[in-house]
Each structure stands twice: as structure tokens, then as C-alpha cells.
């Protein structure tokens, strides 16, 4: 017998909020609304600045979305506020779409916020944490959290305790098989599940040709911690040696919440280098144009803290990519069928050479773009959402069975 429709709460960032993972949440919710199993989505995002609101239009056949902004980045009481909001909304289950720095840029609010899944589960709600990174694979120094080895040791100790709290959720979903192995071996966890990241768009095959005008080199994301554009700008300077058609470097996105003022500092420092465009925040409707116009998408990362939504987007739009030789990205490339040119992190000459391999060779650019598009088609996020629904249905059934078992006979 089919389950009745259920009400799912999601703790996350979401556009127009600019916190990390907002884009993932946008696409996840977009497809979740279309699933027949869902009766209502209760979105529990962060509070927006004055003048902004979360908007969800009603569509026939789409589940309604009720929005309860109930936390703010950097606040210390987020976990308790989230727990209160969940109890008030009383959903059938709760999904957390988070990473280690979702709730704050400094250690205390970030850590306190991550106790929310534990509190929500203790309040009696089936809980899944979609954890986009794990402490063990974050390079804390390069990611900008600390440069002090002693502080790093302390952070890793507390990070391990927070991970244990996160693992108190009914299920912890991660997007990379290696993360499952680490969590199972180090923490003896038996509730970790692999759930593919999924491709955001369901668009037809893109054009692999470029629009007229300068050749655009795109970096997309939230910059300032482990995504730094200095090396990219230095490489761009080397590429503008007069031997090529006009180039444009498009730095699309905002400062990371952990690095306010970063891009403004970069803009001032490199003001003398021509043909660099800083777009600021890219509205969802402008994302297709930004990617479609690009000849190559560059990942100027010094480390990674998880799988890359931007890589999947580059695949969606059939773009060649240039990536650093570092951990998770190389793993995603290998496991999900993406391909790109690689460079040595922090080395402008290496990065310039990798970009040149793409922009000086249209056949190579098209080949990489086609391969990445095929890789991105592997599993649309619409189907990943189905996996989560199955997990939630199981958890809800288990909870109902346990409750029925405990109830005294009447």
C-alpha cells in the first residue's frame, strides 16, 4: 500500500540567500516539489537581509513550500532555534543540507550550529544529514580556518566530536565513496550512505561553439577561503601576451561568508590588469548565460572541502574545465567521468599552460565539453531526490513501527 504524502522540512540555505549550498538547495527543492510523495516542503533557511524574501510560486501538481527563516549565519543559538522551528512545524522528517561551515565562519557558531541535527533527532524526528564535506578531507590551513598547527589539532579534535554528533542522525548522506569509507572506518558508523551529487539541469544538449566576442575564462563560486583568484589573475596576465584573440576573465560570484571583503581587495590589487570582469552575485536566471558564454571554467582552488557543484554545472553546459591537482576534485573527475586540464595549485605558469591547452585548441575544448556534458547527464538531481525519498520512507516506516510497538494495547 503506498505511503500517504509526507511533509519534509529542509534546513538549508536557499536563493536569494547567498550562503554556500544555496544553489544545490534550489535545484533539490525544485525537483522535490514535483514528487508525488511530498505533501508539503517546510523550508528552514537562514534569515535574509531586510528587503529580501523567499518566493515560491504555486504550480499545479507541485507541493507547496512553506518558508520559516529560523537561523542566521554566525549566530550561536542556531541549533536551538532550528529545533524550535522544527517542533513548531512538526514535519514527518527533516533533511539538513549542510557542510562544516554552514552555520558560521568562526569556530564557535559553526560548531554549535552543527549540533542541530542531533537536537532535532532527539526531539523525535527522522533526520538525514546531507553532508557535503567531512573534517578529515578539509585542509584547514588552506581553507582559511587556521594557520596554527596547535589550533589545527584542537580544531580536528573538536571536528571529530562534531562529526560524531552529526552521525547521531538517522542517516548521513555523502556524495563521494571515499567519505563513506572514512566515516565508517574512523567512527565505526553504520548509518552513512552514498548519494550521488546529481546534475542540476535537465536541458537539451548544449552548443559546444562559442558566441562572438572575447574568449571568456570563467571562475564561479564564493571566493576568499580555499577558492582564491590571485593565481588565476596572474595566469590571465601571462595569457594576454598579444598572441591570442581578445580574452576576458569573468570572476562570477561573491566573497565567501568566511572572507568578507576579499574580492574588493583583489579588485584593487589587480586594477592595472585589463579585461577582468567581476559580476558580483549571479542571480539564478543569469547562470545559464554566464556558463554558456564561457570557453573554459577554471577551478582556482587551493584545497577542496567537498564535491563540486560548479563542476556539475560546467558539465551541464558542456564546458571544458581546468582543475588543480588536489584531492576531491580529482576523485570526482575519476569517479564521475569528467575530464579536464590540470594545473599545479598556486602556480600561475602551470595554470596559464592548462588554460592555453583549452582556449588555443578548439577541438580539445569541444571534446572536453562534450565529455563533461555526458558525465553530467549520468544522474539528474531529479533522480537523486528519489533516493532520498526512499530513505525517508524507510525511516518513517521504522519510526511508525517502533511507536506502534511501544504503544500499550487498548
Amino acid at each position, binding site marked *: *500500500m*503506498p505511503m500517504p504524502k509526507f511533509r519534509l522540512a529542509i534546513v538549508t540555505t536557499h536563493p536569494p540567500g547567498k550562503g554556500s549550498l544555496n544553489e544545490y538547495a534550489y535545484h533539490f527543492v525544485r525537483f522535490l516539489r514535483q514528487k508525488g510523495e511530498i505533501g508539503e516542503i517546510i523550508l528552514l533557511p537562514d534569515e535574509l537581509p531586510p528587503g529580501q524574501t523567499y518566493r515560491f510560486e504555486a504550480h499545479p501538481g507541485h507541493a507547496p513550500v512553506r518558508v520559516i527563516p529560523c537561523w542566521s549565519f554566525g549566530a550561536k543559538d542556531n541549533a536551538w532555534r532550528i529545533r524550535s522551528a522544527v517542533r513548531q512545524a512538526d514535519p514527518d522528517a527533516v533533511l539538513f543540507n549542510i557542510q562544516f561551515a554552514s552555520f558560521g565562519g568562526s569556530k564557535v557558531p559553526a560548531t554549535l550550529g552543527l549540533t542541530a541535527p542531533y537536537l532535532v533527532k532527539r526531539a523525535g524526528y527522522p533526520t538525514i544529514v546531507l553532508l557535503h564535506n567531512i573534517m578529515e578531507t578539509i585542509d584547514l590551513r588552506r581553507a582559511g580556518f587556521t594557520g596554527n598547527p596547535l589550533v589545527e589539532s584542537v580544531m580536528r579534535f573538536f571536528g571529530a566530536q562534531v562529526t560524531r554528533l552529526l552521525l547521531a542522525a538517522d*542517516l548521513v548522506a555523502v556524495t563521494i*565513496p571515499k567519505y*563513506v569509507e572514512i566515516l565508517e572506518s574512523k567512527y565505526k558508523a553504520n548509518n552513512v*550512505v*552514498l*548519494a*550521488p551529487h546529481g546534475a542540476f539541469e535537465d536541458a537539451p544538449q548544449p552548443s559546444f561553439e562559442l558566441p562572438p566576442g572575447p574568449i571568456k575564462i570563467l571562475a564561479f563560486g564564493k571566493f576568499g577561503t580555499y577558492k582564491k583568484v590571485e593565481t588565476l589573475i596572474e595566469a590571465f596576465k601571462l595569457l594576454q601576451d598579444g598572441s591570442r584573440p581578445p580574452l576576458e576573465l569573468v570572476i562570477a560570484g561573491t566573497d565567501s561568508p568566511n572572507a568578507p571583503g576579499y574580492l574588493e581587495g583583489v579588485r584593487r590589487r589587480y586594477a592595472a590588469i585589463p579585461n577582468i570582469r567581476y559580476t558580483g552575485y549571479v542571480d539564478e536566471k543569469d547562470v545559464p548565460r554566464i556558463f554558456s558564454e564561457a570557453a573554459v571554467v577554471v577551478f582556482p582552488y587551493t584545497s577542496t572541502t567537498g564535491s563540486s557543484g560548479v563542476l556539475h554545472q560546467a558539465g551541464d553546459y558542456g564546458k571544458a574545465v581546468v582543475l588543480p591537482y588536489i584531492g576531491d576534485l580529482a576523485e570526482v573527475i575519476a569517479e564521475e567521468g569528467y575530464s579536464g586540464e590540470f594545473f599545479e595549485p598556486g602556480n600561475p605558469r602551470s595554470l596559464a599552460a592548462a588554460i592555453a591547452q583549452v582556449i588555443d585548441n578548439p577541438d580539445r575544448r569541444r571534446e572536453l565539453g562534450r565529455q563533461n556534458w555526458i558525465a553530467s*547527464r*549520468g*544522474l539528474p538531481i531529479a*533522480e*537523486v531526490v*528519489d*533516493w532520498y525519498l*526512499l*530513505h525517508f*520512507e*524507510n525511516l518513517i516506516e521504522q519510526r511508525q513501527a517502533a511507536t506502534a510497538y511501544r504503544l500499550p494495547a487498548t
Partner: protein
Amino acid sequence: MQINLQQLETMPGTEQAVAVVGLAGRFDAHEVPHVRQALTQAADRTEGRVVVDLGGVNFIDSSGLACLVQGMKYCRERGADQILCNLQQPVRIIFELTRLDRAFKIAGCVEEATTTLAARNSQN
């Protein structure tokens, strides 16, 4: 990949037919359209009572898993179910890694799968 959807069996204790879809080889994104079509045809013939015999499958990726999830949903929407059987070790590991082994009903062999379907049928 080999796909065999011709086999129709009768569920134990009933007159109702169940389709057995046998798959063999590598089950990845390239095979998904063919398998999806086979599962849909099988479900349409039997009001959603389908057994998928994965005994010959030596590799499955996330696209293959998603295809089986869609097949299961299609069957359940018809008030029946799709049951998997004969999972080989490399395939079983993927199901365990994704915990989809808890979402699907998985039997050891075709006979056990049809018995499970019959039991489910009698409950409805």
C-alpha cells in the same frame, strides 16, 4: 548488455502472471534507456509484478541504480512491486553503499522473488 524480458511466470497460489526480466553484463548509463523500456513493458504486461534477475550483472553505476528505482516506483504506483534477485557481490556492495538494499525487496533467486510477490499480493 543482454536483456531478457520474455519470461512470464505464474505466482505461487495465484493465477496472476509475473514478469521476470533477466539482465546480464555491464549496467551503466548507456544501457539505461533499453532497460527502462524493458522494465516498463514488463510492468505493463503484469500490472506491476516484476522480478529483475541481476545474476548476470557484473557492474552497476548510479544510473543503473536510478533506473531500477524508477522501475520500482512504476510498479508500486500500480499497487504491486519490483523485486530484485541474484545480486552478485560487486553489485550487492553498491546497493549496500547506497543503502538502496533497504529500499528494494531483494530475494536470493527467481523462485523466492515470485513467492515474495505472491505474499505481498495476498496482503493487498
